[in-house]
């Protein structure tokens, strides 16, 4: 560990605000404006992480999102975060981080022993072995080595939000070129301009320029933009995805920079959906390392990182600095560094020829130059203290004999620039290989996007890059290409040897580029190497596909606010609060929160349900039925239209009357059922299942708009406009009569399957006499605002009549006793109306209706169709579960199954409904029902156990 380093005067950190933090249990001090990486570097911490596969020590390699080794476990507990890039974590008071993927610590990691077995573990070795005795045996061992950091085990205590923004121009990247683009786009004052940068501060590479002119330009530009109303600047915001139609996604880290001090009122991160007219990508460029033996040692970093740490954070990270380069930009930066108090001792350049002016300037700056040389060895313990150079043979095929040893503790790599074209490529943009700079640059995109600055390969300088994809003449199995997943040049050679030559095969076979940096610094090196090895030019090899996110993005942000009770809405019943007060057990029924049952103190579900069933059978019950779908259909063509929708003949339905009906889809499958009420010759009210209301409405609309256009029909969904209760039981009429109403409730005046409108306690009401329980029932609707009061009024009116509220579970028992079908429970995705006993009625029906033709396909005429039936265990006390299957006579297979089953409190026995092959012609037959290893003999019976004649309905 090196001593703490003094900052240079141009440092963009606040030296007056020291910040304490800890890493691996030791305390350190940095300054406001630092990142964890810069602070660690300034404190001389050299080993920060361990690589994935071989647990090689890793130091700080980059200064941005392209970091390859400095991943830490940040914080602990529920707020902990694995794999945090030290280079992206702004320093805050109380920051505490640990090394990860190591035991006991990243400095002394016993897993490091794996590195010794490297020869046995080449790329994809696992496909070739572990089959004896079996993979099953080996997997747990291999699995133990998986992963990097640790996931928290407790729920995330912080919150996230998503936000939508629309802008005529979205500029991504607030470096010099992005700032220029934003100035230009916002000049007119009209267009909304959104300027976005992932860093803590806008400025991009300008932030690492100590040049006063650059700093002044930046300040001035930011002031100008701030003064323009039409410009919004988002920092700490990474644009991660570029989707169709110029929609982008960006992740803003709102309070991460505050650490534990982040206020609970603020979201941790925010996912932006950006809807852009035009996009300007000014995302800059990333530097590449060079590939040479032991190039992954702590102390070796990108030249761009060295500049950033030295010129932005004012840190001189070592005593002897060397640069290893293949292009001119490294030379200019070496000069800048030297000029600003960070003397570069050596430049090693693979090129034999370098621009004279640069060489002279370097000489004047006292930099020792090693042209035409390659680094062939690095030494350190583990951090770098020396390197060995060898001259490259003039034809580039190997090395010359002479070796030079240099001592240095920082080696900065400048292997060429890679424009940050990730987003451009995601947008569908094509890339072009620019040989002169050895990089891919944008070459055309169908979306409205322009690319500027370094991202388009406009580097503002001549680079004269001369790639050296691998160091020849030395072992390739120590030359790292992908530092995170420990992919070496030898792995790539192996893949090519085995014919995994497609760049996509290479990636998957070696895992190069599949780690958490997604190959930001390694991909181009890998494909340069691949091109050389397979004798193809780079453009023919191509790149692997760029995918979102550009930088890994927190899962929580994609959920946003929509977690817990906001995950998906529940619809609330008008009488919700009354149900709560009655102690109802509320459950989810088709996105409505509805009472399942109303347990009394100490009562279990079955007991409560039995009590509620008895009340309905013996006195009266009240069910909140508000979710019942209610669709009004009117118009001159309404009747004819509905006649094509419903299986039934509706041409004969008269005003005031109601008819039970089925709706099919065009494949003939039962989609919904319900009661159709005729309000007037040209006006109908459809009751649908609660779960089916939206689907049926949309079905009607689709038919009207797409299939039978021009009909004179209006559909109005009034489901939530009316609160509905089902008042059911022998005492129902008496209960209803106890509330003031102008309805004539008399049995003859208001028979079963008729409908009336009137007033209930002074408010308008609609009442249908239909029954889903088998008892006399009134389905009474009042305007939803009066729903709760109506519920309370009926409960009060029923007090003397033994009325109880009942929930859906009791309703299920009641209708099962009666053999009433519940669509979705007693039907499945194959059920056709003939399976429900509608065959005759359909034959009589003359008109075509949706789904009718499909009933005539071979499948519809199959005698083995599963038909709706009642099932009755021979032993009345036998229990039968829904889901039990009825066996074929030889007991070998399923002939159908039980769809509904319950103990009937009314009949004192188990009753069940089901779908069984050919059941309608097998009434009386005894079959076996099988569930959980047990067989129950049951008789196939008509689906009507209780009051099969329906006498009670006309009471």
């Amino acid at each position, binding site marked *: 560990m090196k001593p703490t380093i003094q900052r240079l005067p141009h440092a963009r950190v606040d030296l007056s605000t020291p910040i304490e933090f800890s890493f691996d249990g030791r305390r350190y001090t940095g300054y406001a404006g630092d990142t964890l990486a810069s602070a660690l570097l300034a404190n001389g911490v050299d080993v920060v992480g361990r690589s994935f596969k071989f647990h090689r020590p890793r130091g700080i390699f980059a200064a941005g999102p392209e970091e390859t080794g400095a991943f830490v476990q940040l914080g602990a507990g529920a707020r*902990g975060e*694995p*794999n945090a890039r030290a280079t992206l974590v702004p320093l805050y008071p109380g920051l505490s981080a640990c090394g990860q993927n190591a035991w006991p610590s990243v400095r002394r990691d016993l897993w490091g022993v794996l590195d010794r077995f490297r*020869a*046995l573990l080449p790329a994809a*070795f696992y*496909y*070739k*072995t*572990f089959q004896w005795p079996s*993979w099953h045996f080996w997997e747990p061992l291999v*699995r*133990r080595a*998986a*992963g*990097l950091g640790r*996931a*928290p085990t*407790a*729920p995330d205590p912080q919150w996230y939000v998503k936000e939508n923004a629309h802008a005529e121009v979205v500029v991504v990247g607030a470096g010099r070129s992005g700032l220029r683009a934003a100035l230009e786009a916002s000049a007119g004052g009209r267009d909304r301009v959104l300027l976005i940068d992932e860093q803590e501060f806008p400025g991009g590479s300008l932030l690492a320029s100590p040049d006063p002119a650059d700093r002044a330009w930046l300040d001035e530009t930011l002031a100008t933009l701030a003064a323009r109303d039409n410009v919004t600047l988002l920092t700490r915001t990474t644009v991660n*995805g570029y*989707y*169709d139609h110029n929609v982008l996604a960006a992740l803003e880290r709102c309070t991460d920079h505050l650490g534990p001090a982040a206020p609970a009122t603020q979201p941790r991160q925010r996912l932006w*959906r950006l809807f852009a007219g035009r996009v300007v990508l000014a995302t800059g460029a990333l530097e590449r390392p060079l590939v040479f033996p032991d190039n992954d040692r702590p102390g070796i970093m990108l030249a761009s990182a060295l500049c950033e740490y030295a010129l932005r954070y004012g840190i001189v990270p070592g005593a002897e600095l060397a640069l290893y380069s293949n292009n001119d930009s490294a030379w200019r930066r070496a000069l800048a560094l030297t000029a600003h108090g960070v003397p570069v001792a050596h430049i090693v350049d693979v090129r034999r020829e370098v621009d004279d002016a640069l060489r002279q300037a370097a000489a004047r700056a006292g930099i020792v130059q090693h042209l035409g040389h390659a680094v062939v060895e690095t030494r350190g313990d583990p951090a770098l203290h020396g390197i060995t150079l060898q001259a490259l043979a003039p034809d580039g095929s190997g090395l010359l004999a002479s070796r030079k040893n240099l001592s240095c503790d920082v080696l900065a790599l400048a292997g060429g620039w890679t424009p940050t074209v990730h987003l451009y490529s*995601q947008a569908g943009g094509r890339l072009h290989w620019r040989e002169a700079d050895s990089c891919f640059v944008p070459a055309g995109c169908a979306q409205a996007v322009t690319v500027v600055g370094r991202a388009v390969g406009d580097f503002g300088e001549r680079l004269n890059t001369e790639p050296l994809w691998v160091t020849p003449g030395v072992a390739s199995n120590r030359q790292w290409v992908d530092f995170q997943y420990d992919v070496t040049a030898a792995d790539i050679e*192996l893949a090519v*040897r*085995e*014919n995994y030559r497609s760049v996509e*095969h290479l990636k*998957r076979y070696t895992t190069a580029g599949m780690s958490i940096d*997604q190959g930001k610094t390694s991909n181009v090196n890998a494909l340069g190497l691949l091109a050389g090895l397979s004798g193809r030019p780079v453009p023919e090899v191509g790149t692997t596909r760029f995918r*979102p*996110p550009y930088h*890994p993005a927190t*899962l*929580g942000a*994609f*959920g*946003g606010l929509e*977690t*817990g*009770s906001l*995950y998906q809405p529940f619809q609330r019943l008008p009488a919700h609060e009354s149900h709560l007060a009655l102690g109802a057990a509320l*459950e*989810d029924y088709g996105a409505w929160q509805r009472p399942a049952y109303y347990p009394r103190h100490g009562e279990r579900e079955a007991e409560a349900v039995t009590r509620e069933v008895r009340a309905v059978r013996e006195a009266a019950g009240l069910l909140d039925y508000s979710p019942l779908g209610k669709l009004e259909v009117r118009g001159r063509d309404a009747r004819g239209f509905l006649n094509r929708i419903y299986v039934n003949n509706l041409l004969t339905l008269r005003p005031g009357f109601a008819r039970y009906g089925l709706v099919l889809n065009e494949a003939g499958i039962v989609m919904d059922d319900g009661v159709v009420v005729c309000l007037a010759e040209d006006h109908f009210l459809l009751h649908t299942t609660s779960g089916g209301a939206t689907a049926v409405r949309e079905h009607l609309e689709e038919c009207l708009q797409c299939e039978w256009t021009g009909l004179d029909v209006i559909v109005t969904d009034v489901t939530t406009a009316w609160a509905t209760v089902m008042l059911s039981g022998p005492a129902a009429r008496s209960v209803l009569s106890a509330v003031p109403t102008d309805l004539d409730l008399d049995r003859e005046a208001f028979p079963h399957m008729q409908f009336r409108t009137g007033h209930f306690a002074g408010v308008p009401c609609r009442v249908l006499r239909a029954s889903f329980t088998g008892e006399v029932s009134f389905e009474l609707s009042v305007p939803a605002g009066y729903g709760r009061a109506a519920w309370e009024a009926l409960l009060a009116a029923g007090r003397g009549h033994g009325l109880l509220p009942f929930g859906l579970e009791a309703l299920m028992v009641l209708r099962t006793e009666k053999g009433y079908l519940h669509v979705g*429970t007693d039907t499945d995705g*194959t059920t056709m109306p003939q399976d429900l006993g509608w065959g005759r009625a359909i034959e009589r029906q003359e008109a075509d209706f949706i789904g009718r033709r499909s009933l005539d396909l*071979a*499948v519809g005429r199959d005698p083995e169709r599963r038909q709706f039936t009642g099932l009755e265990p021979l032993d009345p006390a036998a229990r039968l*579960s*829904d*889901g*039990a*299957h009825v066996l074929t006579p030889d007991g070998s*297979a*399923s002939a159908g199954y039980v769809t509904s089953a319950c103990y009937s409190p009314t009949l004192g026995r188990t009753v069940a409904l089901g779908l069984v092959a050919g059941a309608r012609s097998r009434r009386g037959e005894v079959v076996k029902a*099988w569930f*959980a*290893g047990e067989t129950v003999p049951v008789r196939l019976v008509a689906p009507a156990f209780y009051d099969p004649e329906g006498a009670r309905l006309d009471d």
Partner: protein
Amino acid sequence: MTRYSALSLLRGALNGHRDWPQAWRNPALKGSYDAVIVGGGGHGLATAYYLARQHGMRNIAVLEKGWLGGGNTGRNTAVSRSNYFYPESTRFFDHSLRLYEGLGRELNFNIMLSQQGIIGLASSRHELETYRRWVTAMQLQPVDAELLTRDQVAARVPLLNMSRRARYPVYGAFMQKRGAISRHDAVAWGYARAADALGVDIIQHCEVTGIDIAGGAVCGLRTTQGTVRSDKVALAVAGHSSVLAAMAGLRLPIESQALQAMVTEPVKPCFDHIVISPAVHCYLSQSDRGEFVIGGGTDMYPSYGQRGSLRGTEAVLGAVVELYPALSRLRLMRQWAGIVDISPDTSPIIGKTPVTGLYLSTGWGTGGYKAIPAGGETLAWTMAEDRPHELIEPFGLDRFASGRLIDEGAASGVAH
């Protein structure tokens, strides 16, 4: 074919891994073949392998427009299971799972089949009812399946949100313990290597652009590498089935849609099963590298875009966070999509076509990875015998005119 083994790996270690042979050749396209399979995905490669291995045909080509295994086989979440409702499905998929169980050794390529068990969560009474019906159907086959109580689920999936007040509380679950994930690439590569060793020509970067038909029978193909003659041609091109069928003058009951998947950054193992929640449309498992592999539903509109929409990503990840609130701070590392071939009943369409000598393997939709071994084996049989193998007879193209759809989604609530 050099056998892969620990020993050969050791030999490799001693000589710098310099002697490994090519996993497959790069043969030139010949003028004619006894059978040509279009599509170098799992199904195409497996079909070729079984044709060679079990039916003694050697003059076979697999034509792949891109790189082999680069279609859905190379981008799927690698779940294999055989928990289906209808016996037709269970029989077929369980056969496939059994083949998977021995596949690594058969191909001498470790496909890393990890039988962690698949757990399907029930989030309502109704779902639990469906599971009871479904598990019983499987047990009758018999295929392993069991119901889990809430407590059993909580013990197996400690990260799961078990709050009773959750929007979708856990009522229970089904489990198939033999449910597995495996290395998808290894399946494609293993079949390719084994087929190649049996003499099959795998031609990559060879796109089929036309199908020649004479007298109602297929006689050849036009490709970007030239024309080729053959009177047995199978189409195993997944999301591109309609495109290829159109070349043969056929329209298919297929819609192509984008199906997304995604992975998080790798973390230490903390999740031991494959868990699916039909209510919120997401499923996940943790791979042996440590990343969570996450999937959900399709993007619900026709597409050949292979991108996937932001909305789809949000929906799936939102569901993950809701079900596993502790995973909220993990990061999404990569999101991608494949183009899947959705049939009206979400069941496969495999077998003969109205064109003599033209065979079809499509409709695998979101769930055909698990079917690769059995799909390949039965299609090979069907091609060799020119009549449908009994396991796939119910899955023919003719089922649409008879209405005999096999709608697993409608029956079990969980599609493929």
